């Protein structure tokens, strides 16, 4: 625990120092960065120590705040979720200063380190807190700190709007958690998590209520449809490394909250599992569909976070169903898949956001239609981004594939079970994963292809430069992790057993037993991939040798006889996605305006597509408008006539007197 406290101290002190010295932006930035990196590394050490079998760290202090206490525990589950938190924050810290060098006002940039480090500390505190009030406090701080990062470019109206949507969503989510913890605290008579388990175990009604509250409260943080609307607004507005931290770590804390609650809720009911499964499937599919429709790189990535959270929820849902139907194998697979994907997503989503940041830093835009041909100009960034894309699509042999393999296999395992319900769950999983996989591939083919391949679509892209070394280093480490975990899958899965057992409440050895055959299978699969890689390498060498003798020329590509293909002739992102988008027009519902060329000598033609979030546009904004109009009606009682004001006083009095006399 001491190490963790040191990490907190480092993060907070340097953060405060950074904001205090914001006048000397450069020094402040150095301090903030140092604190972020060192503090996160220390914290990472603490987490790894616990995961490596050190006994759970514990800290209990008296907190004079009534109805609360300071109770921190770092058990395996917490430590596991500390990995993305501290891991990602280490690298974002490493990345941040070079990135901020040309972004925003220097003072803001310096101050942003405070919010960044506070965010990290708050996330860690949420993950280790075992007291309702402490948890809520940390949760709220964790919600507030990114607010200042989202509003980073505060001169832009869009950023302020995004910040509003973000914090409003976060706070409304917290409202449910407030009810949750107050309810539990009231029943249990204590705000300590240990006390909650007792009252929940033998009260299904209560635990169902708590589950619903948790699903909404934590789901909104994690970004489950329809509570996802803040992600695509907040992530593009924030500095890219902040987006990486939010998307890589913060939304995982939402998942953590849900998992932690599940451990307290006692024997789960089947419909919880179904709720999670359906929520996950819907979020996964809609998330990737909306991503497909985007032409802003960071919005696209944000929607992919929704998708991946969906995948995680599917995993947890399958796990809960496994527990509910008393099918431990299914439970093990589900939880293992979900939890593994938590870390995997943290890795490749962090990588992708950092990559997007590098692109933004180099070209000052993330608008797909203005990019292109960057692979030649920033090869290393391109390579890392390619690996990240392949990983998030779930292609073998990268880490994304491992968790999706687990999950799809869980689906198949469900199929083989006699219970029709389990089979149905399995089928749902498979269909969802199938759709998600295919669509994600399409989406990232578009993203990578349009950004890094072909010819530049704008002058900025034309003159893009490779990112600075710290940024490259951060991305390279993450890319490396994608590959390593991909090949180390067989050894990663057994390591999950202990964490899964804490999450699912099943004995570790039983889980180990049910996971063992899978890791064996993955071992074989890995050898296949190694063979494949070797074959590819061989073929590469051979064809190189042949071509060396046969000779290579360069020529313009075939353009129906048009000799000089220009950037404007290239397939655009929108046109690339158009077939799929129009296929799912019903769900995506993005507004398109087409001015078609007409006549023999067409003059003007234009096509614009607005991919604003349908839920925001068709559900939330109208609701808020309606509420605003409703509230405006109140105006009539405050019309400024003093006589009537006095009459109010009299009327209230008379009403009360009448009420008591009756």
């Amino acid at each position, binding site marked *: 625990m001491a190490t963790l406290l040191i990490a907190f101290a480092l993060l907070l002190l340097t953060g405060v120092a950074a904001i205090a010295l914001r006048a000397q932006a450069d020094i402040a930035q150095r301090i903030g960065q140092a604190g972020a990196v060192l503090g996160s590394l220390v914290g990472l050490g603490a987490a790894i120590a616990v995961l490596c079998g050190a006994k759970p760290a514990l800290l209990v202090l008296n907190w004079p705040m009534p109805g609360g206490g300071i109770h921190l525990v770092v058990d395996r589950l917490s430590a596991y979720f500390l990995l993305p938190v501290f891991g990602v924050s280490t690298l974002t810290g490493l990345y941040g200063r070079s990135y901020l060098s040309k972004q925003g006002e220097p003072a803001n940039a310096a101050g942003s380190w405070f919010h960044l480090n506070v965010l990290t500390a708050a996330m860690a505190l949420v993950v280790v807190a075992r007291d309702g009030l402490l948890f809520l406090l940390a949760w709220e701080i964790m919600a507030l700190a990114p607010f200042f990062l989202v509003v980073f470019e505060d001169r832009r109206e869009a950023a302020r709007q995004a910040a509003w949507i973000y914090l409003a969503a976060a706070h409304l989510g917290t409202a449910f958690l407030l009810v949750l913890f107050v309810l539990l605290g009231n029943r249990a008579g204590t705000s300590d998590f240990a006390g909650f388990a007792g009252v929940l175990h033998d009260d299904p009604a209560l635990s169902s209520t708590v589950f619903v509250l948790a699903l909404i409260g934590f789901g909104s943080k994690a970004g489950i449809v329809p509570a996802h609307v803040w992600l695509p607004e907040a992530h593009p507005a924030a500095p890219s490394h902040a987006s990486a931290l939010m998307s890589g770590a913060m939304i995982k804390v939402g998942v953590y909250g849900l998992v932690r609650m599940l451990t307290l809720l006692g024997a789960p009911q089947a419909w919880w599992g179904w709720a999670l499964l359906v929520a996950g499937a819907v979020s996964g599919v809609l998330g990737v569909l909306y991503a497909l429709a985007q032409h802003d790189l960071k919005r696209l990535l944000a929607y992919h976070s929704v998708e991946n959270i969906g995948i995680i929820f599917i995993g947890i849902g399958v796990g809960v169903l496994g527990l509910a139907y008393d099918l431990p194998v299914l439970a093990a697979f589900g939880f293992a898949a979900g939890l593994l994907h938590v870390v995997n997503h943290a890795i490749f989503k962090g990588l992708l956001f950092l990559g997007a940041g590098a692109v933004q830093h180099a070209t000052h835009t993330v608008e797909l239609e203005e990019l292109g041909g960057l692979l030649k100009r920033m090869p290393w960034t391109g390579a890392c981004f390619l690996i990240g894309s392949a990983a998030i699509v779930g292609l073998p042999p990268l880490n994304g594939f491992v968790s999706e393999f687990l999950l799809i296999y869980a689906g198949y395992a469900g199929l083989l079970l006699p219970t029709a319900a389990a089979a149905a769950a399995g089928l749902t999983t498979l269909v969802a994963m199938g759709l998600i996989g295919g669509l994600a591939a399409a989406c990232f083919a578009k993203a990578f292809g349009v950004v890094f391949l072909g010819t530049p679509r704008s002058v900025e892209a034309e003159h893009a430069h490779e990112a600075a070394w710290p940024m490259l280093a951060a991305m390279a480490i993450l890319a490396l992790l994608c590959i390593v975990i991909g090949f180390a899958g067989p050894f990663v899965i057994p390591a999950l057993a202990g964490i899964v057992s804490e999450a699912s409440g099943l004995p570790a050895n039983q889980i180990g037993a049910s996971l063992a055959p899978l890791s064996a299978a993955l071992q074989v699969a890995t050898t296949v991939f190694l063979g494949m890689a070797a074959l590819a390498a061989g073929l590469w060498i051979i064809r190189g040798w042949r071509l060396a003798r046969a000779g290579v020329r360069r020529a313009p590509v075939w353009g129906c006889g048009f000799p000089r293909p220009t950037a404007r002739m290239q397939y655009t992102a929108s046109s690339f996605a158009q077939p799929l988008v129009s296929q799912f027009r019903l769900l995506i519902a993005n507004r398109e305006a087409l001015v078609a060329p007409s006549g023999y000598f067409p003059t003007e033609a234009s096509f614009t597509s607005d991919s604003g979030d349908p839920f925001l546009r068709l559900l939330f904004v109208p609701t808020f408008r309606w509420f605003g109009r409703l509230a405006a009606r109140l*105006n009539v009682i*405050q*019309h*400024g006539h*003093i*006589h*009537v004001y*006095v009459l109010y006083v*009299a009327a209230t009095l008379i009403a009360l007197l009448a009420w008591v006399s009756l």
Partner: protein
Amino acid sequence: MPGLLATIDVVGLLTCFALLGTSRIGACIRFLALQGILFSLVPVIAHDDGLTVRVLLLAGANVALKGMIFPAVLLRLRTRAGFHREVQPYIGFVASILFGIVALAVSLGLARELHPALSHAPFAMLEAAIFLISIGLFLIVSRRNALIQVIGYLVIENGIFVFGAITVVETPLLVELGILLDAFVAVFVMGIAIFHINSEFGMADSDRLNTLRG
């Protein structure tokens, strides 16, 4: 001496109706003065335990205040502000009088409700107090002219005074004086307020004061 109380009651009620019925502010002020003097006597009569110095003192102060000082202030204000009649109140004079009758009936009923709880309080005065309060409120709500609103407030004051005098057997002198002082200051403050408003707006029709809304 219930007979005396009854007389005070009746005359007091009539002053109320006069206030409701007349449009001329000067008249209103005079009726108010009369009313004040009348009801200032109530404690002297109501207290069957003889006339203590304290009671006399209070009564005297009241008469002085409500019978002379307030009217003086108000009349001065009227001339300074230069308005002499209430033009078209929200609720017309006839309607006001009708309201007065209804209010009278209601306060009779209410007094009958309350009397058992306040057994030692003379019924007539109880009913009068309630009636005064309701009329005062009505004046504030139904008249445009700020001055008449002040008058309404003072009618309420009278009602409260009567109510206190008949219900509470003995309150500390300090309190009584404090209350008097407050009424005193209140009238002055309101007077100054009206003066400022008048000098700023050129008139003191409080229904012009409705710029602040929402």
